[in-house]
């Protein structure tokens, strides 16, 4: 059977791409962030996941406001990156896992999630940068197959944190019922606090970010209980990307333990954060649920 071996979360700030393109990983501004991936790389080397389910928000590459799905799931054999307009390098294509995609879609819809199903899907920096950070030396031969899942974080009304938590739980159940031996890592990308627009642009809330990083491990239900208004007030208008962390965490239904984490602010305008959680095979979660 398929099993989820862990969950990774990371900020996906576009300037990470610029830093990698210019070879600035060792500069004082960037070093703490990139160093956080050393234990991630060790874990990936040891565990060797077959598939990464990447939960992120599209920033206007694949979806325009003419049609904006609340949740979408990729069902393609291949996902391409493309020009987003502001000049970061376009990364090589990503292999999909069509069988697991359709299995997920079948189970999520049966679980009452009304998805948009995408057989063609461009993946933006929020999908590509985390994979590149996981496998920086792969030369574009990514060693995992991928499945993109997007959460609308542009056009309000957005789904609630509770809905995203439940989506994550449904993803966890669906993967666990896939009748093929494979190891899956769930990646949630975005955040933490940031706001790009308005007079409050530049907001970073370190205290709230650290609160989220503590709760995501030990008490994710507390984060799932936050309203969108509370998240925007405390984490900024783009801080709603916290939804991707909550969804990732919902999918981890085993013995969840923190492998590594880092908070480093600012990265560009954002509270930068990385966290890797392992999801042991024992069925009792650390979380209350």
């Amino acid at each position, binding site marked *: 059977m398929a099993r989820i071996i862990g969950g990774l979360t990371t900020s996906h700030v576009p300037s990470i791409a610029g830093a990698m393109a210019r070879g600035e990983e060792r500069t004082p501004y960037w070093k703490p962030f990139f160093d956080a991936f050393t234990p991630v790389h060790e874990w990936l080397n040891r565990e060797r996941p077959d598939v990464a389910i990447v939960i992120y928000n599209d920033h206007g590459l694949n979806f325009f406001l003419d049609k904006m799905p609340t949740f979408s799931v990729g069902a393609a054999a291949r996902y391409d990156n493309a020009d987003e307009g502001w000049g970061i390098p376009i990364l090589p294509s990503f292999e999909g896992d069509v069988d697991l995609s359709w299995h997920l879609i079948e189970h999520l819809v049966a679980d009452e999630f009304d998805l948009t199903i995408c057989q063609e899907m461009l993946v933006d920096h929020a999908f590509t940068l985390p994979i590149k950070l996981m496998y920086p030396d792969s030369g574009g031969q990514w060693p995992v197959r991928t499945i993109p899942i997007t959460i609308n974080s542009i056009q309000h009304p957005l789904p609630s944190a509770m809905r995203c938590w439940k989506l994550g739980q449904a993803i966890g159940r669906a993967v666990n019922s896939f009748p093929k031996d494979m190891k899956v890592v769930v990646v949630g990308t975005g955040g933490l606090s940031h706001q790009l627009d308005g007079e409050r642009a*530049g907001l970073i809330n370190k205290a709230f970010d650290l609160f989220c990083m503590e709760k995501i491990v030990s008490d994710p239900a507390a984060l799932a209980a936050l309203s969108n208004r509370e998240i925007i007030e405390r984490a900024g208008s783009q801080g709603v990307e916290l939804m991707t962390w909550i969804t990732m965490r919902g999918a981890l239904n085993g013995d969840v333990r923190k492998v590594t984490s880092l908070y480093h*602010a*600012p990265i560009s305008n954002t509270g930068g954060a990385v966290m890797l959680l392992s999801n042991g095979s024992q069925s009792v979660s650390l979380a209350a649920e």
Partner: protein
Amino acid sequence: MSALESLTDIPGTPVFTGFSASRGLALNKMCYSFNDRESREAFVRDEEGYMARFGLNDAQKAAIRARNVAQLIEAGGNVYYLAKFAGIFGLSVQDIGAQQTGMSVDAFKAHLLAQGE
């Protein structure tokens, strides 16, 4: 669980509601086109013609001419799409943050750093 909550009265914080989306559709559609290099070049060659082609209203056109992010948001622009417009001029999110907050770019960057301490 309460389904509806007000999001539009958080100080200094524009929230992209249905009202904004309706008002800003033409503007955001133009900015979405800037994913494509040829579209960016076409805009630079003939800004007025390009705006007319997408049917921008007068307030949106004035805000584009002024490169004024606050006015663009007021006219229905969404910051993720506006970032593609800003990218044509090499403006970063620190540049547009400084513009919206009335700080210098250096002061805005210092503000970001201070919050990380």
